C-alpha cells in the first residue's frame, strides 16, 4: 500500500485554515526562515481518511482478535472510558491551570481525579502514597529505582548494586542502570528466585531486589517472606514490577507483604488501550519511608472539594513528567476502577487465573509445560521437540489469533508465554487450544507448511536482516 507521501498530489489540500493576512516572510527576517521545502503530504481529506482506514484493517487488535500475549494483559478496553477521557472538561484543559492559584479553581475536577486515583491505588496495593507522573511501565521502574537511590543517599548508605532475577523483563535491568546502579542477575531455581542464590549475592552494597510476583513464568514466588527478611538485614529495599498485577488484585497487597515500592502498568491491569505501543501510564506507589522523595507537584486536599498542587517537598527527586503524568490515560483507569469496584477487581484476577490454568490444562499434552503447578494469570510452554516457537506463532496468525509472547522469558527453551486475561470466554480458549493442537499436528505432518506461514496476512514473513542492512527508515 502506497504511503501518504507517494499519494501526494501537488496543490491538493484537506484541512487548510483561511489564508492568513501576512506570511512568515513579512514577519521575520529572511535569515531565520526555512528554505528547505516542507515535504508533508498534499492530500484531500477523503484521501487521508481512506488511507488510514485501509491501514487500520491490516492490524490484529483486541477488538477483533484473541491476543494472549504473556505479560501484556491484552484485556478488553471498555468503550465508556474512551468517552470519559474525551470529555472536554478533561481533554481541553491546559496543565498550567493546575498550578496557577486562581486558575486552579477551574481545574478542581481534574485535581480531584488525580487525588482520588492515588487513594484508590494505595488501598488496592497497601502502599502509603503514589505518584501518577511516570508515563509508562519502564518510566515507572526508573522512578522507583531513583526513589530507592534517594532513600539510601538520604540515610548515608553506600549502595551500588541492584539485583534482578534472570527471568526479569528487560526494562528492569535497563532502568536500574539508568538510575546509576550495577545490575547483578540472580539465577532462578524451580522457576523462582532462589533464596540461597539471593543470600550469596546479598552484600552490604545491594540497594534493592527488583522482582514481580507472580513472576514472568506465571509462578507465585513462594519464598517471598524469606526474601523480605534477608533484604531487611542489609537495609536493601524490595521493588515490585506491577506487570503481573492482574493475577493478584484482592488476593495480595504488595505493601502488606514487604514490598517498598511498586509500579503499575495501567495499560495492562486497568484496561487502558495499548495504542499499538503506547501511550501507557506507570504510576508508582511507595511505603512511608520513601514518600519524602516522590516527584513534585503533589495534589493535596485542603478541604472538601478543594485541591491544590504542592511543590514544597525539599527531598523530592524532582520531575519525572512535565506535569502530572499521562492524565488522559489515568482517567480511563480511574473510571475502570470505579466501574468494577473492589469485588470486580478481585473477580478480574480470579478469572484471569482461572482462564490461564484452564488453557494450560488444555495444552498440557500438546506443548511441553515445564512447570506443572497451578499457575497464575499466565503460563509458559516450550514448543514440542523439533518445532520452533516462531513457526507456531506465525501459523497462529493464519488462524486469526495473535501469537502468545515468544522467546521471553529467556530461561525457557522455545518459549511461548500465554496470558488469556479474564475477558475471554471458555469458547475462545477451547478454539485456541484446538488451533495449537492442529498446528502441532500439521507441523509434524508437513514441517514446510509451518515455515511458509503466515499466508493469509497482508504480508508474509519479512526479511528483518535486509531491513537492518538497508536501513530504509523514511520514505
Amino acid at each position, binding site marked *: 500500500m502506497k504511503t501518504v507521501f507517494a499519494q501526494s498530489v501537488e496543490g491538493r489540500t484537506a484541512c487548510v485554515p483561511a489564508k*492568513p493576512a501576512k506570511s512568515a516572510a513579512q514577519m521575520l527576517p529572511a535569515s531565520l526562515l526555512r528554505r528547505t521545502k516542507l515535504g508533508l503530504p498534499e492530500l484531500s481529506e477523503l484521501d487521508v481518511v481512506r488511507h488510514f482506514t485501509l491501514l487500520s484493517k491490516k492490524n490484529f487488535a483486541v477488538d477483533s482478535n484473541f491476543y494472549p500475549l504473556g505479560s501484556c494483559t491484552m484485556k478488553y478496553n471498555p468503550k465508556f472510558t474512551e468517552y470519559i477521557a474525551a470529555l472536554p472538561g*478533561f481533554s481541553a484543559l491546559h496543565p498550567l491551570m493546575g498550578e496557577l492559584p486562581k486558575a486552579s479553581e477551574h481545574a478542581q475536577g481534574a485535581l480531584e481525579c488525580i487525588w482520588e486515583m492515588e487513594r484508590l491505588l494505595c488501598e488496592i496495593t497497601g502502599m502509603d502514597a503514589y505518584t501518577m507522573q511516570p508515563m509508562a511501565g*519502564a518510566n515507572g521502574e526508573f522512578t522507583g529505582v531513583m526513589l530507592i537511590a534517594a532513600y539510601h543517599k538520604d540515610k548515608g548508605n553506600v549502595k551500588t548494586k541492584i539485583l534482578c532475577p534472570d527471568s526479569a523483563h*528487560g*526494562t528492569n535491568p535497563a532502568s536500574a542502570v539508568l538510575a546509576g546502579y550495577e545490575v547483578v542477575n540472580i539465577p532462578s531455581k524451580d522457576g523462582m528466585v532462589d533464596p540461597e542464590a539471593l543470600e550469596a549475592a546479598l552484600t552490604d552494597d545491594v540497594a534493592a531486589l527488583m522482582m514481580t510476583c507472580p513472576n514472568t513464568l506465571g509462578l507465585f514466588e513462594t519464598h517471598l517472606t524469606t526474601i523480605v527478611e534477608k533484604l531487611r538485614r542489609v537495609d536493601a529495599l524490595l521493588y515490585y514490577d506491577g506487570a503481573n498485577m492482574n493475577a493478584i488484585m484482592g488476593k495480595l497487597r504488595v505493601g502488606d507483604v514487604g514490598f517498598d515500592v511498586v509500579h503499575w502498568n495501567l495499560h495492562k491491569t486497568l484496561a487502558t488501550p495499548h495504542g499499538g505501543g503506547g501511550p501507557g501510564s506507570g504510576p508508582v506507589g511507595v511505603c512511608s519511608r520513601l514518600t519524602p522523595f516522590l516527584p513534585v507537584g503533589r495534589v493535596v486536599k485542603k478541604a472538601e472539594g478543594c485541591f491544590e498542587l504542592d511543590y514544597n517537598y525539599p527531598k523530592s527527586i524532582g520531575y519525572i513528567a512535565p506535569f502530572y503524568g499521562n492524565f488522559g490515560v489515568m482517567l480511563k483507569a480511574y473510571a475502570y476502577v470505579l466501574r468494577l469496584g473492589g469485588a470486580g477487581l478481585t473477580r478480574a484476577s480470579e478469572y484471569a487465573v482461572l482462564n490461564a490454568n484452564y488453557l494450560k490444562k488444555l495444552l498440557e499434552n500438546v506443548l511441553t509445560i515445564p512447570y506443572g503447578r497451578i499457575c497464575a494469570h499466565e503460563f509458559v510452554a516450550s514448543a514440542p521437540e523439533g518445532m520452533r516457537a516462531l513457526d507456531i506463532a506465525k501459523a497462529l496468525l493464519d488462524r486469526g489469533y495473535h501469537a502468545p509472547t515468544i522467546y521471553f522469558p529467556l530461561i525457557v527453551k522455545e518459549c511461548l508465554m500465554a496470558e488469556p486475561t479474564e475477558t475471554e470466554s471458555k469458547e475462545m480458549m477451547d478454539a485456541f487450544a484446538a488451533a495449537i493442537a492442529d498446528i502441532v499436528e500439521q507441523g509434524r505432518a508437513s514441517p514446510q507448511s509451518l515455515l511458509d506461514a503466515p499466508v493469509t496476512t497482508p504480508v508474509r514473513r519479512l526479511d528483518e536482516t535486509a531491513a537492518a542492512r538497508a536501513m530504509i*527508515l523514511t520514505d
Partner: protein
Amino acid sequence: MPFVPHTPADTRHMLDVIGVKTLDDLFADITPDLRPRSFNLPEGQSEMDVCAHMEALSARNAPHMVHFLGAGFYNHYVPKAVDALSSRSEFYTAYTPYQPESSQGTLQAIFEYQTAVCRLFDMECANASVYDGGSAIFEAMMMAVRHTQRRVLVVDESVNPIWRTMLDTYTGNVDVEIRTIAHVQGRPDMAALKAAIDSSCAAVLVQNPNFFGAIEDYTELFAHARAQKTLGVISVYPVMQAVLKTPGEMGADVAVADGQALGMPLSFGGPYLGIMTCRKEFIRQFPGRIVGRTTDMDGKTGYVLTLQAREQHIRRAKATSNICSNQALCALRSLVYMSLLGPQGLTSVAEQSMIMARQAMAGLTALPGVALLHDAPYGNEVALTLPCKAAALVDKVSAKGLIPGYPVGKYYAGLDNVLLVACTEQTRPEHVTELVTLVGGAL
C-alpha cells in the same frame, strides 16, 4: 460483573477440567498470612453512574476559559478527522508490532510518522517516539554521552525550564555534569555558549524558539560545536518549524520536540509526544523503536521494527534506553494531523498564530510600563516585562475569567515581573481586546 463473560456453568466446567474445587484453590500459594489486611474499595457502579460521576468532575473544570498559556504546550485546533481515525479500534486496541505480519497498519503508520517528522525537522532519521519533549531531551543527551564518551552537557538556560528540571532529575545518578549557561535578557548568550564548549563536552542543548519566544540562528554555534566533536542538540516547536530555519539547515546533530501541538489535546498534562530525529551517523546510539522498510518472502513491500539490538528486550542492562511502550497512538495522531494540514495548512497555522501574537503584543506594550523582555524576532509566544509582579497580575486577571499568560518567576530568579503570553490560530481578536483591557485594568 462487567467484562468477565463466564457463566456459573462455564466456571464449574473449567474448575473440573483443571482439577480443583473452587476458585480459591487456584490461590493456595497465597497463604493466609499474605492475604490483604484491608481491601476497602467502593462498590462497583454501573456504566451510567460512572459516566455521570465523571461528567460532574469534568464540569468542575473550565477548559474553555480564554487563556494565553503556552510554555511548550499549545491550544491549536485539531481537525475532528484526527480523532475519528485514531479512534479506530484496529489502531488503538492493537499491541506493539512484535508480529509484523499482523501489524502492518501500525508499522506503516510509524514509518510514515518517522518520514513526516524527518521532513518537518529536515533531519535524516527518527524513532517511533518517546514519552514527551522532556524525556526526548534526556535521551538525546544520553545519546551524545554514549557517542562521544564525554560527560559534560552544555545547556542554555532559556531552554524550557520544565524540561531542564526533568533533565536534572533523570541525570541525577548518571555521571554527567550539566553546565547551564545563563540567558541574557531572555536570549541565549551565544558567546558564553561557544566558550563553554570544549573537548569534555558531549553536547550543547538549545531551543528554538526559546522559552521566552526568541528565535535565533544556531548555525554558527553548531559549527563551533562540531569542530570540538560536541553534538549540537536542538529542541524545537513543531508548528513553528513549518516556517523557521530547520535543524537540518542549521547543522544540528539531534533535533527533538514535544509533538503535543501536532494534534494532541492538552489533556491536563498528557499523553503528549516525544519526537526525536538525528543524523544517520548516530543511528546505533539512537534510542527507541525504529521501523524500517523491507520486503517479504514474496517480494512485497512491508515494514518491521528494526535495529532492535539497541533495545531493552535484547540488550537489557546494556540497552540504549529502558523505553518499551512509547506514545505510538499519539505519533499516529500527529501523522494524521500533518497529513490533513499538509505544508500549506501547517504554515498557515504558524502564520496565523504569529499574527495574533503580534496583535496581543501591540495592545499590551501600549500599556504603561509593559515592554517586550527581549528584542529578538518571535513566533506565536513571547515574554513581557510588567511594572508589577507577574504572578499577582495573573491571579487578579484570572479572577475576571481570563488567564493572561504564565508568570515565569517560579523558574527564573529575578524574572518575577515577566509574563509569557502565547497565541494560536484559535485566538480571536475579541480575546486579545479582552486581554489588553483586563491586564490594563490590573496594572
